[in-house]
């Protein structure tokens, strides 16, 4: 049991996915610009809207791997 508990708690490389949105979103100077715009929507706006979907997607690999290993009942 302790061993299993440790496995659940422990850090895994796949957890690095969880940090990606923070880098993408908190690096404001990168997206604080108008071009490239899409159909008249400035980069600032469509980039952040896009990250709503990407932010959910990066959770998937973590979710799938942990579910597979039965670490999340």
């Amino acid at each position, binding site marked *: 049991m302790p061993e299993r508990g440790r496995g659940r708690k422990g850090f895994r490389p796949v957890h690095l996915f969880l940090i990606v*949105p923070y880098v993408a979103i*908190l690096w*404001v100077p990168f997206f*604080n610009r108008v071009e490239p715009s899409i159909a*008249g929507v400035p980069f*600032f706006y469509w980039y952040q809207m896009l990250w709503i979907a990407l932010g959910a997607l990066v959770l998937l690999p973590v979710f799938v791997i942990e579910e597979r290993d039965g670490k999340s009942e």
Partner: protein
Amino acid sequence: MAKGLDLTATSVFVALFAAVTVLGFVGARGRKADHDELAEWGLGGRSFGTLITWFLLGGDLYTAYTFVAVPALVFGAGALGFFAVPYTILVYPLLFAVFPRLWSVAHAKGYVTAADFVRGRFGSGLLALAIAMTGIVATMPYIALQLVGIEVVLAGLGIPGRLPLVLAFAVLAAYTYLGGLRASAMIAVVKDLLIYVTVIVAVIVIPIELGGFAKIFAGVPASRLLLAPMTAGNLGQQSGYATLALGSALALFLYPHAVTGLLSSSSRRVIRRNAVVLPAYSVALGLIALLGYMALAAGVKSMPAYAAGFKAFGPNFAVPALFLQMFPSWFVGIAFAAIGIGALVPAAIMSIACANLFTRNIYKEYIFPGCSPAREGQVAKLTSLVVKLGALLFVLEMPQIYAINLQLLGGIWIIQTLPSVLLGLYTRRLHPAALLIGWAAGILAGTWMEMQLGLKGSIYALHIFGEIIPCYAAFSALVLNLAVSSVLSATFNLFARNPFVDATVAEDYV
């Protein structure tokens, strides 16, 4: 307002409101058996699956006031107001990684509130009291703002007087009292469907009428389209934007109503699944934020028909005015019902959360220790009534700006519970006395910064080594809190063994 009563819109609005009232009372009948117990009334028996939790948390976190205030901020301040979008992006990895631990320990130990957990983890009643009080005080003005949301749409319909607001409130109070969290969950489903319909129609119809997104963005003043850039020695709006998003994300799940929503789910897997599917609401929120620019492009501010509304509610009237201008009356009724009913769900859950905190961490701890579970439930139900009545009186008697200012301060206060609650899920090396001092330091510093700003915003410019760094006051106050908590913990632990007992074990968290 100036246009007089809109009969078609009002009829649709009232019909939807009535339908939801019936639904709330049906939901109130729910499971009878142990209805008076706190975990049943105040957490829906910890029974909600993925779908209901999705509706419940969606209805709970993306409140009616958000749907009015976010576009209002974009309408008035431009790009800075868009911070709501990155904020809700950053919340979900945190929800996914951290908060299943809170669910597990609460499930194992029967905790109903975050303060329950702190009480068990750190063994300090005083620290738990501080956490509970912070939660209650931060949530009360939030409830008042939901009622302001209803007030705005009632004004938009041209319904005069305050009686309708009192009626809507009575409906809310009755179904919450009888049905607890289950009734809110049922109403949340209807509310969310109405919101999605409104948003989808709005972002298709309005841009077409206004000549496309390119034209809408072209109408935004260049100085507000982007964040003010960095200059030598000043990070400009960009550091304010990033800390506003991060600070708000860190604070969200510390709010009592968010914790109540989380703990009502039936398993930790439900929470993790929801972290993946809840961003659907963020898409809606992002599109709603853009309604602020559409209101600019439509020029509603200078139209005489809406002058009275803007005078009474400021930029918060932008979206109602836009809907009145762009939609046929019957759809205005649907859209306004979405906002109005959208206010009921979070207001109910917030009052339930406050009631849970009062019952568990003040009444049971200090007034009547060892009270029976049935009595706990009774006290919570009554408390929820008192809390809502307080919010109603606040909205009726005080200028609206008080509720807005207090909610701003509430965000600064609630984030100060982060070291105890969130770090507490991982370590108990922190000393409760140090946590309490850190909490106080954070609250004082944050409140002081907000006073310096005259409550006009929440970005306070720090001067560090000659650099000017605008930063969300809640965030800088949290950094101070963390520093004080950890340094003092290390010091206290050095001199004496921590005498407080941890009621939890490592297995409770997984």
